[in-house]
């Protein structure tokens, strides 16, 4: 039993964060810059962001956007003669695309073009929904939190009304009404039923921030309400907003695909990843690729956004990173222990005082043998 192992090199990113942070702030960097750097340190999040953008660029360049043609020679509406009974012609080694790399659906449409179109639509819904819902949520939450009183009460009751209605339900009704509007219309309408989380978060941030001294100072200096809201308070609440809207975007792709799966969202001949799965799930045993390609891209896109969101959360709020059980207790720093701690910060439970006993920790969740 001896002192704390604080000087042990820890594989966690936490220490790096703290060091970088203090160094950089000494040089006088802006808050945004620090957060950006912290985000860049998170390899998984950066990789996810790159993959996301790459998939988007790939899908746009492949089949083009609107009237512009991409480099792929089929369109998603064109019927083609069946090649190899519609099986995928993609070959990884030696690499060759073949005629229809992702195969063809039952009526001979090129599945690669359909999938790319589905990605475009899904990403469009994600981005538009995310932006519109964030704007609405920020405005409602900011006004409610800043002005308080009856404005707050009215706005929050309106928020409650929208919260009571499940998003999937209203999305399905809206989608059925506006299915003809295409992906853009669907996205905007879905945004009108998904801004509530952000509004609540922004409101609680504003309620706390409006009492701070810098707001008082701005008011004394004669700043208008709008200026205080947008120039003084909002930048301080932006972390919460960005993280919440990233999570909203991740939920958006699942909502869009679910609605399209039920047949209320994007309608054929246009394509959406959820729609493709719904159309082809009965062919799962005979033509599995019709199922796997859209499924793969849904999961890939949602996973990327989730990782980016998690990276952003950590960049804005690195509190949780700093925790280390090692530092809060008194372990036995034998040679073996030290090596162990380096191998994995795992060690769940410390031996109780007295060390050698079987430990009252046995059987409790996570009682580890790692520390012994």
């Amino acid at each position, binding site marked *: 039993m001896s002192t704390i192992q604080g000087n042990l090199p820890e*594989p*966690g990113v936490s220490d790096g964060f703290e060091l970088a942070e203090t160094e950089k702030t000494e040089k006088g960097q802006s808050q945004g810059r620090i957060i950006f750097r912290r985000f860049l340190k998170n390899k998984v999040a950066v990789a996810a962001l790159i993959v996301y953008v790459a998939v988007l660029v790939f899908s746009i360049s492949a089949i083009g956007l609107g009237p512009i043609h991409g480099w792929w020679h089929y369109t998603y509406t064109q019927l083609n003669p069946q090649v190899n009974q519609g099986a995928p012609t993609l070959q990884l080694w030696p690499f060759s695309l073949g005629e229809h790399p992702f195969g063809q659906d039952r009526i001979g449409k090129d599945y690669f073009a359909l999938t790319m179109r589905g990605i475009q639509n899904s990403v469009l819904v994600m981005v538009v929904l995310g932006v519109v819902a964030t704007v609405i949520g920020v405005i409602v939450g900011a006004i409610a939190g800043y002005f308080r009183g009856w404005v707050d009460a009215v706005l929050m*009751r309106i928020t*409650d*009304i929208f*919260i*009571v*209605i*499940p998003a*999937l*339900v*209203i999305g399905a*009704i*809206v989608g*059925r009404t506006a299915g003809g509007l295409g992906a853009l219309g669907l996205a905007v309408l879905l945004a009108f039923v998904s801004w509530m989380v952000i509004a609540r978060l922004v409101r609680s941030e504003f309620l706390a921030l409006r009492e701070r001294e810098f707001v008082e100072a701005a008011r004394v200096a004669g700043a208008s309400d709008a200026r205080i809201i947008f120039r003084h308070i909002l930048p301080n609440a932006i972390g919460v907003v960005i993280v919440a809207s990233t999570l909203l975007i*991740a939920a958006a792709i*699942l909502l869009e695909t*679910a609605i399209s*799966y*039920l047949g209320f969202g994007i309608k054929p001949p246009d394509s959406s990843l*959820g729609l493709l*799965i719904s159309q082809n*799930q009965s062919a*799962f*045993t005979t033509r599995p690729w019709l199922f796997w390609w859209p499924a793969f891209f*849904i*999961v890939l896109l*949602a*996973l990327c956004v*989730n990782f980016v969101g*998690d990276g952003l959360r950590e960049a804005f709020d690195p*509190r*949780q990173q700093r*925790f*280390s*059980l090692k530092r*809060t*207790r008194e372990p036995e720093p034998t040679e073996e222990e030290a*090596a*162990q701690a380096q*191998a*994995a*910060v*795992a*060690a*769940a*439970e*410390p031996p*109780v005082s007295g060390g050698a006993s079987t*430990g*009252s*920790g*046995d059987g*409790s*969740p*996570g*009682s*580890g*043998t*790692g520390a012994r």
Partner: protein
Amino acid sequence: MVSYIARRIGVSILVFIAASFIMYVLAANSGDPLQDLEGSNSPNKQALIEARIHTQHLDLPAPVRWLLWLGGVARCVVPVGGGCDLGTTFQNQAVTQLLPQATLATIQLVTLAFVLAVVLGVALGIITALRAFSGFDYSITLVSFFLFSLPSFLIAVLLKSFIALGYNNFLADPTLSPLALAVWGIVVGLVVQLVAGGNFRKRVITFLIAGAVTALILWYMSVTQWFIKPSLGPVVVIIFCAAIAYGVVALLAGTRNRKAWITGGITAAIAIACYFGLQWLLNMSSFGTLIILAVVAIGVGLLVGFFVGGYDRGLMMRIGALTAFLTSGVVVLDRLMRSWPAYMDLTNDRPLATVGAGTPGLNGDVWITGLDTFTHFLLPTMSLLLISFAGYTRYSRSGMLEVLNQDYVRTARAKGLPERTVIVRHAFRNMLIPITTLVATDMGALLGGAVITEYIFSISGMGQLFIAGLFRTDVNPIMGYFIVVAITAITFNFLADLTYSALDPRVRVR
């Protein structure tokens, strides 16, 4: 407090009315309610259209119909003029009759999945928090992100295709090849060494032992045709009961508490004795008697704890009750397993079902129907479980990390409390406060949340009611669904706020 509750209820009613208006108008305008009739070839088409317009008041504009509908709802609360009226569907079924059945089916579906998701999610979250930034933590994080990103329909379709079809095919020839044994052994070994942690040498040893034991057990099960004739048998029942007693004692009291050992031991021994002595009673049981038996078991556990007593009587009684409940669960599980061959005969050797809530026309005792419910609800429950438990893992992990950084946890450690006490008594309880609110809010959203799962597995619950209504633009069942979902959501949000202020005295409701 009373004025707060009164105000809150008043506001909730207003919110409900406004939300129902939006919902009604949207639903009414979402399509053409006469579409199916206009496309039909029946000779009395015109009369049918007239009849539907008449019964559903389709000649009136949607807001007026909403007022009529609201009047019917109001009569549910104030019993004046003919009682509850939520309208009829296009098939002239009263929504008030459809709703209870559908709600029951959904509750049956979501309850187990929800309980399991919370228990597993919170447990896993705590474990990952206790070993934050280890290989285990990263793996669980990766898995939960993956589950986050899976749409529910995708999971459902995959489960149907792989688990149901795959397991049914496997049962036709239930022997595991050496390759399959090796793969399972390696997979389980990898998982166990990840959980156990430690240095490299220890991990290798853990991996080897766990892998070998898994492969051996599976080989034994394969050789003895266990998958067709499953049962636990006396030896395994005894081992399970002992393990449960050990786990409960270690978790709730610590392994150095002698009285706790006595309580757990006596209770487990009684359960084992019941296993040998009470089979005749189980054979003739119905669902009701099983519940009575469970209550009796808990009572026996409490009694044992009471008589062992000591300075910490309450704790002993809790240990006794929990041990009794879990060990009697093992005994029931064993009995349930032994009905499996009979059940397989009834389902033509393809027991796992992919649609519906039960085999139509099935006759059998409580064990057969129990198995039938199990095979039908296994896949939907799994798919609901998989998508929801990842969230709880994340929340409880970050909650636990935050609590472990608090000063009172450091104080608890500093005054020399055993680590078990610090984690279970000080950290765990405080971590549960935000989780409780989350659970209450989620419970409100639960009834409406299984729409897709019900649709895919053809379980005629609330989601089906809603979707079927939506396909036909049949507003009344949609609104029936809405009433249940909205009322549960409002109620549970209210309860969430109340529990929060009850659990955390720093939070005051105004």
